[in-house]
C-alpha cells in the first residue's frame, strides 16, 4: 500500500504546500485514514456544513488547488444525496496572492472557476491539509476580489497544527498532531489515482514509529 504513494506528488513537492520538507528520506509512520475513514469524514463534514448553515441553500463550496476542488465535489455529492440540493462548487487558485512570492518557485495550479456570484452567499473554502494557514490567508484575499460573501467558513480533511497565522478551520476531518519534520500525504483517487488514504511520513530514526508524536508542541488543531 505505501508503494502507491509516489514521492513526486506528495505535499512536500506540491507548489501549494506551505513549507518545504527538511530534506532526507522520509519513511511511512502511520496510515492515518483509509478509504472508508476518508469517506465517513467527508460525509460528516457535509452534514456539519448543512447543519451550521441551517440548510444548503446559500452555500457555495470553493476548493483550493490541488486537492480542494475534488474534496469540494465530494462534499457536494454527499449533500445532494441527503438534501436533494446541488450546491455550487468552485475552484480557487491562490498563487498570485501568496505571501512568499519571490521566495520560492510558485506557479498557478489550475484555473479559478467560481460558477456563481458569491456576494451574499456562505462560501465554504475546502482544502486537504491545514498547516501554517498561509494558503488559507491567500484564499481570503483572492475571494475578496471576486465578491463579498456573507460569511466564509473553512473545511479541511486534516488539521496538522503548526499555525503561523490566526486561522482555524470550522470543519475538520481529522486533527492530526505532527512534528514539523513530518509530512502528511493525502491521496485522492480522482487526483492521485489509487485508493483514498492519508499517511503520516517522517524522518527515518531507525525506530519506526518511535517519535511520531514528538516535537509537535505547537498547536494541535483547534
Amino acid at each position: 500500500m505505501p508503494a502507491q504513494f509516489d514521492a513526486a506528488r506528495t505535499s512536500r513537492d506540491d507548489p501549494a504546500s506551505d513549507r518545504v520538507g527538511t530534506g532526507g528520506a522520509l519513511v511511512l509512520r502511520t496510515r492515518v485514514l483509509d478509504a472508508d475513514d476518508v469517506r465517513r469524514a467527508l460525509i460528516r463534514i457535509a452534514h456539519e456544513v448543512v447543519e451550521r448553515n441551517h440548510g444548503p441553500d446559500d452555500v457555495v463550496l470553493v476548493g483550493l488547488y490541488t486537492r480542494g476542488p475534488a474534496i469540494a465535489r465530494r462534499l457536494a455529492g454527499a449533500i445532494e444525496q441527503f438534501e436533494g440540493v446541488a450546491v455550487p462548487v468552485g475552484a480557487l487558485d491562490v498563487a498570485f496572492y501568496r505571501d512568499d512570492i519571490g521566495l520560492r518557485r510558485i506557479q498557478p495550479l489550475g484555473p479559478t472557476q467560481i460558477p456563481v456570484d458569491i456576494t451574499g452567499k456562505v462560501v465554504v473554502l475546502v482544502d486537504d491539509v491545514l498547516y501554517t494557514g498561509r494558503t488559507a490567508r491567500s484564499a481570503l484575499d483572492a475571494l475578496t476580489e471576486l465578491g463579498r460573501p456573507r460569511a466564509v467558513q473553512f473545511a479541511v480533511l486534516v488539521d496538522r497544527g503548526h499555525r503561523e497565522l490566526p486561522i482555524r478551520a470550522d470543519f475538520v476531518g481529522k486533527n492530526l498532531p505532527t512534528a514539523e519534520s513530518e509530512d502528511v500525504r493525502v491521496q485522492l483517487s480522482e487526483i492521485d489515482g489509487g485508493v483514498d488514504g492519508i499517511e503520516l511520513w517522517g524522518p527515518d530514526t531507525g525506530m519506526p514509529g518511535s517519535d511520531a508524536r514528538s516535537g509537535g508542541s505547537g498547536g494541535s488543531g483547534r
Partner: protein
Amino acid sequence: MKHLLSIDDLGRDGIEEMLSLAENFVEVTRRDIPKVPALRGKTVVSLFYEDSTRTRLSFETAAKRLSADTMSFTVASSSVKKGESLRDTVQTIEAMGVDAMVVRHSSAGAPHRVASWTDASVVNAGDGRHEHPTQALLDLLTLRTHRGPALDGLHVGIVGDVRHSRVAHSDVKAFHALGADITLVGPPTLMPESLEGWPARVVYDLDDVIGNLDVVYLLRIQLERQSEALFPSLREYTARYALTAARAKRLRPDALVMAPGPINRGVEIAAEVADGPASVITEQVANGVAVRMAVLWSLLGSGGSIV
C-alpha cells in the same frame, strides 16, 4: 528564465508552459476586478525606441494588472533627443531600481545588448526585423482557444511582407515548434532572401492555397516601405494578396483570420473580412495582455519555474 529575447529561449515545452500559464491570466482579465497582487513592489519600465501603441499599452496594462509599478520611456520625449546612448539610458534607468525592461528597438539584437548591461529582466517587444516573441505567444494562445493545445498538421498561411517582418520570424518558429505546417505567401520581393532556417514553403499566388488553409495570417503592408518599390502599387498588391471578401468566400468554413495589427483596411484585408465571423483579430489583442502577464510573472514572480 531571466530574459525573453527570442522564441528560441522557450522551446516547445517552454511555449506550452507559458500558454498554460497565460490561460490562468485570461481568467484574471475577465474578472470584475481584473487585478492580482502578484508583482507588488516590482517595477517594469517600457523602453520604446520605435513607435508603438498596442504593444506598449498591452505590456503596461499587463504590468498594472499584476500590481507592478510601471514607467514609460519613449524616444520622442526623452534624453535620446539630447544624444544619450542606449547604454547610458539603460544604466540611468537601472539606477532608479527597475526589475524588468520591456525593449523595442529598430535594430535587431538591441534587447540582447540591453540584457548584457543590466541585472533587470529584459523582454524583447520587437527588435528590427528580428523577433517579436510575445506577439507569437499571443497568436498561439488565440489559436489554442479555437483549436485545442496541439497544432499538429494545422496549415497556417502567412501572407505579405515576410522579409521585413519580425512577427513572421517569431511566428514561424513558434507555430513550427507546436507542429503546424507553414506556407509563406507573397511576391518574391517580400519573401526572405533564403529559406534557410525557415521551416516553411513559399507560394507566390494566394489563390493557389486559400482553400487549403486553416489559418490565414495577414502581415501588415508597411506603407512606409512603398518608396522601396518592392511591389508595383498598393492596388496591385491588394488585387493579388489581400484577403478580399471574394477570397474570404473560398476559405474553409472553420478557417481563422489573424493579423498582428495595426491593420490597413482595404489594403491587406477587406474591412468586412476584418470584422467578419472568421476574424479573431480583437481576440488577439485581448490575449496579448494575458500573455504579457504570463511573461512578466514568469520573469519576476514565479521563481524561475519556466525553462
